[in-house]
Each structure stands twice: as C-alpha cells, then as structure tokens.
C-alpha cells in the first residue's frame, strides 16, 4: 500500500507503477461496484487537510484524503454545510475524494443538485503521472472542457484526485417536515410530486413503503418554514391529515433517510436513478423476489436491498432499464460483483469513445482497471 504524503510523491508513484493500481482514499467504498485486480494499492489517505475555506464566498478546498466528517464539522462551526448532504452509508472514515469520485449525493439532491453540481475544481494526477488542475475556486467557470465534472463520479479510473474545491451553502435557520400517513407508493409519490411541483421549494421528498409514509422537507428562515409547511400541508390535504415535524425531529429523520437507515440488512444493495413516477412500480415488481427498499428524490432514487444472486441482480437491472433509468450495485459479495454489470452497459458507439477518453488520461490502463466495467 502506497500512501504518499504529497501530490508530487503520488505523481511519482503513478509514473513508477509497473502495473495496475487499486486507487482509494480510506477504502470505505471497496464493496461497491467491481473488484479491481491489482498488485499494488495507492491511497490518498495521507493527503489530508482543508486548504481553503472562504465562508463569505461559499467555497471550500480540501485535499482528497480529508475525512468528510472533518469537512462537515468545519462547515458546521461556520453555520454552513455540504449542499447535497452526502450519505454516510460507508461509515465515518470516508474521504472527500471518495465522495467526489463516487458522486454520491443525499436527499437535498432533489432540488439542490448533486456533488457533481457543486464541484468547482479539482487537482488530479493522470495515468501518466502528470499533475493537472481543472476548474478553480469560483462559482461560475466555463473555461475549457469541464474535466472537473468528468472526473466526478469516475471512481478513480481516469485520474487520481488530490484536491477538490466545492461550493457550500449556509445551514438553514429552521427545518420542517410534512409527514403524510397511510399512503401506498403511488399515492406517496403523487404527494411528493405535488410538493416538488409547488412554489414552496421542497428540499427533501422521500417515501417509506414499510411505514406507508411520505415526507416533504422545507428549509429556510423559521417564519418561512412555518408558513410554507402549513400552506403546503393544506394543498396536500387530499393525501390526508399531515403531521408537521419541527427542526430537531426533521434533522434526525433526514439524517436517517440520507444514511439509508431504512434499508433492512441484506447481502446486496442497489441504487437506481429513474424518473420519479417510475419508483412505485419498481418497488412492486421486485417485492416478490425479496427485494425491499425506499424512495428518495421524489421517487426518482430507489434504494434497494435483497439477496445477492445473479437472478435477483438481473431483475433489479431490468426494472431500472424498463423505466429508462440507471443503476449501481452498491454492495454485494465479491464473486457476484466480479461477474455482473455493476452499472448499465454502454451502447457500442459510446463505449468506443469512452475507451479513447480513458486512454487519453491513462494510456497504460493502470488506474482502477475494471472498477466500473470489465476491462
């Protein structure tokens, strides 16, 4: 395991590598996607620390190995937060580099955008060991190709990020949640859709089938939250009487939704992104296979868990494809992950371009080969 202390040392390690490298931060996401066959491991864990924080400019930079928990603590002390509230589904050791490399976003993604919407700049080392920076520290930047976005969500297969810069926002003064009970999934998503299609700026919209409850979150100044939760609850009266949760209860609830606490413990975990109205049918189609889950992002994020076998995996992927959506295999025993498509296969024309783009960053094919797709 190589854990370089500087960007230059990391670049040298890549230049000197004689074969494939398993690239990671603290390794918390190694049970996601495909296993990498590599003799050597390269970690960004020792590239750590916040390098810039300008609360008045809504911007922070941190080295890739900085723990998310440290970033969130520093932001909280200044009354700010990560906009997309990344899930803590991989424990408290996950790094900001890992969050950006996996583009994992939480409930606020539905209106606030994903990590990829907030990454302003990256420093990274490509497969030839060149140190490169793309984007910057300003909120608006269209200078050249948006390589920072391309690296976001690329799981270390194009370049190893050494530092990331991202936009942050103030924590709202208050949070309120509208809870609607006794709804089936279709009714639940209809309620979420009505809320998201209202003028009240809903920042969280989830449905829990096990509890038959739909949740809509509003965050803003206290008087605004009070006004808008009451007004929206009134508009949603066709879905039954609403319970309204205050700030403290809301924060606890949405933390649990963010961290997928409502998924039963099971061998395999999937994450599907589909049009919101497709969520309920997917839950229903997969229930007979012992696959359970819940909906976030107004119905468009389907978090699922179930048996880790090929037939179940195929059924989950099929359900996502039929809905025109996409999937990630978030967790499964290694033998299954090694043989199935962990993300949707690509059409031929795109696959050819993807291979050329990958080679343009990593001509030797040594960075996390096979992490997303079989080489």
């Amino acid at each position, binding site marked *: 395991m190589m854990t370089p202390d500087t960007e230059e040392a990391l670049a040298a390690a890549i230049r000197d590598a004689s074969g494939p490298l398993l690239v990671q931060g603290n390794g918390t996401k190694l049970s996601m996607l495909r296993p990498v066959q590599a003799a050597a491991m390269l970690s960004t864990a020792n590239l750590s620390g916040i390098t810039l924080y*300008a609360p*008045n*400019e809504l*911007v922070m930079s941190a080295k890739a190995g900085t723990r998310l928990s440290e970033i969130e603590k520093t932001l909280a002390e200044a*009354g700010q937060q990560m906009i997309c509230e990344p899930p803590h589904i991989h424990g408290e050791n996950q790094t900001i580099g890992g969050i950006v490399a996996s*583009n994992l*976003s939480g409930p606020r*993604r539905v209106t606030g*955008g994903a990590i*990829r*919407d907030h990454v302003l700049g990256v420093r990274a080392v*490509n497969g030839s060991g060149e140190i*490169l920076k793309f984007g*910057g*520290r*300003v*909120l*608006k*930047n*269209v*200078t*050249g*190709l*948006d*390589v920072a*976005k*391309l690296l*976001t*969500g*690329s799981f270390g297969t*194009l370049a190893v990020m050494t530092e990331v810069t991202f936009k942050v*926002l103030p*924590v709202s*003064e208050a949070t309120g949640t509208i809870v609607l009970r006794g709804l089936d999934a279709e009714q639940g998503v209809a309620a979420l859709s009505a809320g*998201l*299609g*209202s*003028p009240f700026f809903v920042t969280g919209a989830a449905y829990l089938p096990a509890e038959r409850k739909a949740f809509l979150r509003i965050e803003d*100044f206290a008087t605004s939250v009070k*006004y808008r939760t009451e007004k929206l609850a009134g508009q949603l009266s066709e879905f039954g009487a609403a319970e309204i949760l205050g700030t403290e209860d809301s924060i606890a609830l949405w933390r649990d939704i963010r961290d997928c606490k409502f998924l039963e413990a099971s061998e395999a975990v999937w994450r599907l*992104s*589909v*049009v*919101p*109205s497709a969520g309920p049918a997917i839950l229903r189609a997969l229930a007979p296979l012992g696959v359970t889950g819940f909906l976030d992002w107004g119905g*468009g*994020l389907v978090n699922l868990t179930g048996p880790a076998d090929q037939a179940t995996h195929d059924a989950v992927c099929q359900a996502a494809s039929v809905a*025109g959506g*996409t999937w*990630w295999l978030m967790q499964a025993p290694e033998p299954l992950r090694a043989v199935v498509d962990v*993300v*949707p296969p*690509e059409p031929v*024309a*795109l696959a050819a*371009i*993807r291979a050329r*783009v990958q080679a*343009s*960053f990593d001509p030797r094919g040594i960075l996390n080969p096979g992490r997303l797709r079989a080489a």
Partner: protein
Amino acid sequence: MLQPKPKSNVLEKRAEIIAGLKAVLPERAVIGDDVSLKPYETDGLTAYKQMPLAVVLPEDEAQVVAVMKFCHLHGIRIIPRGAGTSLSGGALPLADAVVIGMMRMNKILDINYADRYAVVQPGVTNIAITQAVQDEEFFYAPDPSSQLACMIGGNVSMNSGGAHCLKYGVTANNLLGLRLVTIEGEVLEIGGKQMDAAGYDWLGLITGSEGQLGVLTEVTVRILHSPEGARAMLAGFASNEVAGACVDAIISSGIIPVALEFMDKPAIHACEDFAHAGYPLDAEALLIIEVEGSETEQTEMLARIRDICAAYNPVSMRVSQTAEESAAIWKGRKGAFGAVGRISPDYLCMDGTIPTSQLPNVLKRMQAMSDEYGLKVANIFHAGDGNLHPLIMFDANDVESFHKAEAFGADILKLCVEVGGCLTGEHGVGIEKRDLMSVQFTPAELDQQRRIKTAFDPDWLLNPSKVFPLSGLSAAA
C-alpha cells in the same frame, strides 16, 4: 485574428460539396449563394467576420446525421450554430467550413409536470421553454440576457448562466439528458429523464464544450414551479469597495438572494438613460437584490437585507413596490449591453470570474488600466457568484482603438486569473479567448483537454480554431 489555413482541396470543390449536401438534404436545407450566406458570417462577436463555404439548416436528427456523415467522409469542417448570439465568437465560420444552423429544429417534444422535465429540440429559444410551461406556473431557470433570442442548444454548448443562477445554477445544473450526433454520424443518448447517470458524467463534459464534441439534436431540461412571487430592491453606495463589502455581508449572514447584481457608475448611468428604472445617479455602485417567496416572506427577507445594507451607509435604498417597478429594474439590467451600445459606438463585453472578495481590488486595477489605455469601461457584475462583465467602449472605425480594446480586455482577463478566477464565467472561450487559454492552463492541462476532444473528433473537424490555442492544433490533430 489568426485562423487555420483553409483546406484548398475543400475550397476548390465548393460547388461539388454544395451539390453533395443537396443530394443528402432537402434543397431548402442547403444555402450556397453568397447573398444568402451573408447573415452567417458573424455572431454576437461582430468584430470578426468570415463567410462560410455553405450553410445547412437541418429539420430533423436524420438530416443532422446525413450532414455529419457527408462532412466526415469528405474531411469538411463543421461549425454548429444556434441563434448566433455568442459573445465569444463560438459560431464564427471558417472559409472551408459548413455551418450547421439548428434554428429549424425548434419543436418542444414533450413536457411532463409530474416528473418535472421538458424535452426540446436545440433550436428552441431559451424563453420559449418558459413560455411553454408558464400556464402551469412552471419555468426553466437559467436566464441569460439574450434569452429572447438565444437557443437552448447554444445554451448547452456554452453552459450559459444568467442573473438568477445564484439560486438556480447554470445550464449544466438544469439538464437531465441530451442527444448528440458524433462526427461519424452516430447518435449518442446521454443521461435521460432521471437525475443521476451511472458511468462517466458525459452530460457534464458535453455541456459547455462549445461544439467541440458533437452536434446536439435534443435536450431534456428540468423545469421548476415558479415561486409565489419575487421582488427586487436597489441599494446605491458611495464606493465600489463599500458595495463589495455589503455583498460579502449579505452572503455571510446566511441569506442567498435569488439574484445579486452589481453595477458601477458608468453602467448605472447608461442603463438608467435606457430603462428609466429609477437607478440612483449619485451612487458610485449599485446593487440589485432580488428575493422570492410569498409577500410576507419577501418583506421579511428584504427587511433583513435592508438592515445589512444600512450598516454600509447607502446613498439610496429602495424596495420595489409593484411588479412593474421590478420589471423596470430588470429591464435596465438585462438591457445593459444594449444601453452601453447607445453611449459608445462599439464595446467589447468581457466575462471573467473572480473570487468575490477580490472585487474592490479588481475594480481599482481595472480603472487604472482604463486610464492607461484611454478607453472607458462600464462594469456589470453578477456579484453573488463573482462573474464580471466589464464593457470596454471603443470605436470600431478606428483600428487602433479596437486593438487597444482587445489588449485591455486581455489584461482584465489575465488579472481575473491572477487573483484566483478564470477567463470566462458564462460566455465561453470561443475564438475571443482561445489564445489566452495558456494563461489559465499549463501545456499538460491543455493537452489533456485536446486529447479528450480527439477522442470524440479524431480529425478535428468540429468547430476547429475555437477554445484551444492554434499553436497546439497540429500536434494534437
């Protein structure tokens, strides 16, 4: 402006190429005579002009595919064009290139309110999307000043912003999917109607790629429900520094207005003459601040903002009382470029971005440059996100004045990079800033971007001579 040498074998075969295009397209979709080509010789950056070899105006995706295959086969360069409003020369033709104009692909294909998206063709104007959904009280958020004319395909290609992106983000943050035709004539479906896409973020890479990677034939955008209402206020200050400090104080307080715009004195005067919006003429700097929500929410938020502004001794402060008053305030701001056009025969509109804390410093240094060059500059600034629009006034009939304006503009952009910002916040690199790219990027960083371009377009036929400095072109192509 240095351009790549036209391919003589293409120029010589112009008549055959036009005939060949007419063979694969309807006759009405091909323009080959000089009189009809004239309107395509320039775009929003009118300082540069070049007649193209031909123009094609495809009516559907199949025709786009046919054009791409034909041009690919014959090694002909292609310049994609929307409404031709680019301020960076993104649609400037080359003598040996076919301009592919997307204005006839202007249909709205699907609107879905439950799932909150609209599928449109690239030639639909920005405003037309909002107009198509406003009866249901929805809107498409990014609002570039040219929104009445500019097309969504161009917005995607340049990753356009607007005055309200402080709250709603830029084009890239409001897209779900695209269809893109590659130079080989393959149709790629990128993203979809869902929020996240597995695999690489092609949507993010293609957005803002300035026609370097393919030609768009379909765009799926997010649509949002309109807020209950919006209201603007004006606050005039005695100096740029004080106004800049006030912007800092507003953001630091935890308030993110939907828009936070800054004008300096020359801009205030030009816009007031044009819009009669009641801008304070005695102020050195003006902030336009807009908030959204119910009447009560607007009142409360504006009261908080007024309290903050009051600490910076404003020379004037006025909250809009009516929708008409708010509209007039925005008319002045959105008409700013035209307004400056009324007081100067010509102007160059720059588009750098800086860290907002650098605003007073940058404005001071820009004033020094203005004195040095002997050219006036008016500043319009998306203050919340650091995007500067200095308008450099010059006289295009005076060649020396134009060259000075260009040099002044380049110095401003270099200053933006020096203080931690970038060359362009929302207008794109185009032809205008191509040779400044090496100020912001190292040779290795430029080469990495060129290799990505090559992966999509191996022969560099798509919008060549834009974005990347010409010096590296032959090496990568």
